């Protein structure tokens, strides 16, 4: 019986080719636009996250704090209920990590951490052959830092291996190199801290984050300690994680157990992440309106069709079709348009997303890319399909219910 209703629905759909094509087009465009916009916004967001994780890591541990009077304790008279709040307001901060070895041992208890890099930061004046500028010195252990960053892939000139093998070498951000007209192999002087040091440029890197590319230089950690006059302490830790999404909760745990200031990448980049989230939601709402309009279109087509088909429904009822059969014919029509729309919309979405990913687009600032970034995520397709199912179902259900309520005797009497 279901197949007969489906067969009738199919014939009715074919009998309204133009109206159904317009409805179908609405679903196809709605689904494909939804997928395209989500692929782009989440593509740029994912690329931004990859950039910041590859540059500053998932978690950063910096200053140590001591709790002075920030703990609030309370308990009931019978002693059963107890409250304890730790307040950071009364904490005293000590700049940098006091004892890196002890902290490393403590971090061994966190299996979610995949790498630790100790970084000593400080400021210096970098002088090239003709010009100089203030830079942010990062003392690192190259092999350790590779575990927590994407530095190896960020090198645009020179070799990371050269930097690794030559302690008196330096890696420069590409904007510094451009501004000071420096090339790989040239010598520069860092002034500040305890004096001057001369270093050879082993490589030039580009993170895409302009703030970093125009101010950061990497030197070896022991050289940095001597140059900045911080022999044992004052450094920070940059951590990488197997699952960076869990950084906030791991950060909180590390902070509680080590009494150091710990910031996850989500907290650090909250402003940009909020911008991406707002863009994603706003584009989803905008594009959903196309699906809503196509749903209204389908409702319109079906509502008119129920009026036009009243006599046919009445005669079908006289032949023994149940009210539920009458409504099923209209629900099936919605199902047919929806199914074809989903298939075509998905295909168009995939093709358009692929085409967009090939469009050249140069972006520098918060990341570095030369083409549109797209994210291939099945969730985008699932959401687009779900939204279209909801809209088309509602659009079909109302006319279908109306069809079920048709009284054959009344219709036939009025027709004759």
């Amino acid at each position, binding site marked *: *019986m279901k197949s*007969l209703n489906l067969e*009738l629905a199919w*014939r*009715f759909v*074919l*009998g309204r080719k133009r109206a159904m094509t317009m409805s179908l087009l609405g679903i196809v465009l709605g689904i494909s636009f939804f997928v395209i916009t989500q692929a782009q916004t989440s593509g740029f967001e994912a690329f931004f996250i990859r950039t910041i994780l590859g540059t500053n890591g998932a978690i950063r541990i910096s200053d140590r704090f001591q709790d002075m009077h920030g703990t609030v304790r309370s308990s009931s008279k019978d002693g059963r209920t107890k409250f304890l709040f730790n307040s950071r307001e009364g904490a005293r901060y000590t700049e940098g990590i006091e004892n890196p070895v002890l902290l490393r041992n403590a971090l061994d208890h966190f299996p979610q951490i995949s790498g630790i890099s100790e970084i000593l930061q400080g400021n210096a004046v970098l002088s090239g052959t003709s010009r100089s500028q203030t830079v942010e010195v990062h003392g690192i252990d190259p092999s350790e830092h590779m575990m927590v960053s994407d530095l190896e892939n960020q090198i645009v000139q020179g070799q990371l291996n050269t930097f690794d093998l030559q302690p008196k070498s330096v890696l420069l951000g590409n904007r510094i190199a451009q501004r000071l007209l420096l090339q790989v192999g040239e010598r520069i002087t860092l002034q500040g801290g305890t004096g001057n040091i001369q270093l050879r440029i082993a490589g030039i890197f580009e993170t895409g984050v302009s703030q970093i590319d125009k101010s950061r230089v990497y030197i070896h950690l022991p050289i940095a300690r001597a140059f900045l006059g911080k022999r044992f302490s004052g450094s920070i830790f940059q951590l990488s994680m197997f699952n960076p999404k869990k950084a906030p909760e791991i950060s909180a745990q590390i902070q509680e157990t080590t009494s150091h200031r710990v910031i996850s990448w989500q907290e650090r980049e909250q402003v940009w992440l909020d911008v991406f989230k707002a863009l994603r939601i706003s584009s989803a709402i905008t594009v959903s309106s196309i699906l809503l309009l196509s749903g209204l279109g389908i409702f319109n087509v079906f509502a008119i069709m129920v009026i036009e088909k009243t*006599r*046919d429904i*009445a*005669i*079908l*009822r*006289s*032949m*023994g*079709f*149940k*009210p539920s059969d009458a409504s099923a014919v209209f629900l099936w029509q919605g199902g047919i348009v929806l199914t074809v729309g989903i298939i075509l919309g998905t295909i168009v979405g995939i093709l358009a997303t692929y085409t967009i990913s090939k469009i050249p687009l140069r972006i520098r600032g918060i990341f570095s890319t030369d083409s549109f970034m797209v994210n291939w995520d099945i969730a985008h397709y699932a959401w687009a399909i779900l939204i279209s199912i909801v809209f088309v179902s509602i659009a079909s259900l109302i006319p279908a219910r109306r069809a079920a309520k048709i*009284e*054959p*005797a*009344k219709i*036939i*009497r009025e*027709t*004759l």
Partner: protein
Amino acid sequence: MNDRVLQKPLIQATNLFHSFSEGEETVHALRGISLEAHAGEVTAVVGPSGCGKSTLLYLLGLLDRPDHGEIHLEGESVAQASDQRRTFLRNQKLGFVFQFHFLIKELTVCENVALPLRKAGVPLKTATKRATEVLCKLGLEDKCKRFANKLSGGEQQRVAIARALVHSPALLVADEPTGNLDSTNSEKVFELLLKFALGEKIAVILVTHNPELAQKCNRILRMKDGQMIKN
């Protein structure tokens, strides 16, 4: 006459009353109608427009319910039976022909005719075969695969008759089946309807305004103002 008395009626309506609203007015369409019809018998219901003929057919065809009174179809009380039961009976026991053919234009002639069988769960092949047979008997064998709206008025009405008879109903209810046809077509279609129905021992109750056609029926029931005035 004796045979008729001895035979159990296929359908028996007793003291039917029915009214419906038309705008703000209530139309008392039937006021205590009683009748019975037997298998293989053709009954014509005649009377002036608005006397309740069509309303009577809709009640007998289980398309509507009487306000009062009883209808027995093959001994089963059906006037107040459940919607599900009445729907089943319409599919299994009843056939309808209306003044207008009411064919579904998106379906071919054969598909239109096969609809009652398909609804009853008869497989597509069997239903198509049976529909083709009936169409052959009505002289439409060459129109099977054409769409219904491509046929002439007389042909469309013959297709409607084929659809009403394809599942060999016990009762055929026909509301002015030739009302939309010219005299030549009207007579031709009517002859076919009678021939086929009688051949299959189907009881026919039909409404007509054409006295010549009514004269060809076994019985004539005359109605006026919702009442039977002559049997």
